[in-house]
């Protein structure tokens, strides 16, 4: 479960306030979507949840399964069960994808007091998860995300989520840069991970993704606050009418 209470955050460098009192609760097992126009603070929200140091929280709290994570470093949040699928997954030349996956998985296991996986066990798990997302072994041999297409990068994100088995997954515009086929593969990957013990926050511009990952609740974020909450039909309404009416209505 993810609870965000009266969250205010600004850019650390210049003090620009981006989030102005976000309230949001995602009960375990639910999928919530956040939609909103450009500049509403969607990506900032995802970064603040994940613990990026470029932002400063000035007020409010974020609870992950009841525990305040604002005092935690990014890696501690990840190991506590939070996963951020990046809008733009970073390319890291020189770090083999396999090495990265193994280091991440073992860091998670260690934090949970589990033994590191043996090489054969690790290979088996990765192969299985990779196959589900049409990720070839050849891709895994390459440096992390280097030379990957947009679709490959997003599939790689979802595979990492499948490996790390978080309790809360935050998907930041996972649909951006994907064609219809790639979108479907990614959405299937996410849907396979839905379950009674896992919640999702799906951030997107477009309703299209929500045809594939059907949310339980849809929120509209504007100017750093959630101005409207509804069911999945709210997304359809936004798609038909745009954001202007709802923003005007809230103002």
């Amino acid at each position, binding site marked *: 479960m993810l609870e965000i209470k009266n969250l205010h955050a600004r850019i650390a460098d210049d003090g620009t306030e981006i989030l102005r009192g976000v309230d949001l609760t995602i009960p375990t097992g639910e999928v919530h979507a956040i939609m909103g126009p450009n500049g509403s603070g969607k990506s900032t929200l995802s970064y603040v949840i994940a613990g990026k140091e470029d932002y400063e929280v000035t007020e409010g709290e974020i609870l992950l399964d009841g525990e305040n994570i604002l005092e935690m470093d990014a890696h501690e949040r990840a190991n506590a069960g939070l996963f951020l699928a990046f809008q733009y997954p970073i390319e890291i030349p020189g*770090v083999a994808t396999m*090495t*990265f996956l193994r280091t*991440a998985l073992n860091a998670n296991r260690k934090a949970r007091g589990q033994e590191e996986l043996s090489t054969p066990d690790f290979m088996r798990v990765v192969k299985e998860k990779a196959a589900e997302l049409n990720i070839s072994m050849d891709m895994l041999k390459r440096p992390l995300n280097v030379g990957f297409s947009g679709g490959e990068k997003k599939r790689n994100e979802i595979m990492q989520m499948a490996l*790390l088995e978080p309790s809360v997954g935050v998907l930041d515009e996972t649909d951006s840069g994907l064609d219809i086929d790639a979108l479907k593969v990614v959405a299937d990957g996410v849907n396979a991970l839905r379950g009674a013990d896992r919640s999702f926050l799906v951030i997107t511009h477009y309703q299209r993704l929500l045809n594939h990952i059907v949310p339980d609740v849809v929120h509209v974020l504007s100017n750093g606050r959630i101005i409207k909450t509804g069911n999945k039909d709210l997304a359809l309404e936004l798609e038909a009418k745009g954001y202007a009416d709802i923003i005007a209505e809230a103002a």
Partner: protein
Amino acid sequence: MNMELKRIRTEAETAVLEAFIDAQETLPGKSETLSDRRQRMALFEQQGLPHRRVEEWKYTDLRTLMRTIAPLAPSLGEGQAPETDVPAPLLEDAAQIVVIDGRLVRADNLPQGVTLTPLRDALAEGSISLGGATTPDRAIDALNAAFVSDGAALTVEKGGKVETPIEIVSLRSGVEEMSHMRVEVSVGEGASAKIVERHISPDGAETQSSAVTRYAVADDASIDLIRFQMEGNAATHLGETVLDLSGKSHAKLLHIVAGAKLSRSETRVTFNGEESRLDVAGITMVADRQHADLTLYVDHLVPFGDSTETFKSVIDDRARAVFQGKIVVAQDAQKTDAQMSTNALLLSEAADMIAKPELEIFADDVSCAHGATCGEMDEDLLFYLLARGIPHNEARRLLLQAFLSEGAELYDDHPFQSLAFDAIDRWLEEHAARG
């Protein structure tokens, strides 16, 4: 009229001159050799140690940095070389040539096709020349030539494909002396060899040393070199690696620089024969108050030469790294392709990197480029790893490893690659994991 101002000699400079007066008669070599040595010292008497007004030494001002000169290590015939533990070769199957405090102690298991003459003998016979006086920037060669008494002359016979790596380990026993060693390697026509140079000394000992290694690579020959400067944390290291490339030859050289308090490692490459290739790279890892200077000169004198120059540096604490790379393409050297890059990561606010890439091109049909970057670790890369649960020190280690490993790309699938990786891992284990 040129007005030469009377220069005040530093304590170190006086010590060098006095040491030479005492030692000159005992140094090996015939009268020509002695005259070469005297020429070098005559020049030294005028110029002293190189300093910041000598352009090539602007960032490594030896006059300021070398305040004292340790006594000269005893020459030949002055008793046994000090006992010290010689480490096993880095590559298990390697032959090993051991030089302690500037004296050749032994050469084990030299492979077929390779012959060695102790430098002291070669000098005594007059079969090797130390060369005459040169310009003020050649301070390392001058100091070495004046004082060197031993080392080795190594020949790889014509056509000899020597698979067994040869390790030249030059170590200091820890006695606080100044020692000099010189190795002359001649790689015969069509021959090939793999050579590991290791320059090491114990931590805490203020040893000073110069090491000149000169490689003459004949037509169609090739040489793979990896040079470790892993001196102890109080040492001063002055190194010069010279590569003379004949036609259709191929030389690779990887510098691993992690040791010494003060070091300057020069590389001087001359393309004397057409269609030759050079791949030179450097991995510098420094911390504390280390000063490490890697200086490179590549002279493309003839057409159709290709060279790549790739240098990676990681600098922590208050350390300073210097990279100077100068590629000269002579008017005749058409169709030269030279690609130089230097990238540095600064791990602390007080860390310092000086990069000075230079291209001097006199030919009009060439492809030459250089690029230099210097900065902090990329926070976005770091955050991506953190967001996957990888702790800070581990994330930093992964990124630094990736960054530095690129310096070893010239040895993809080569036994030297894993030597480079081991050195990187060891350094990161000791340093980068702290942050």
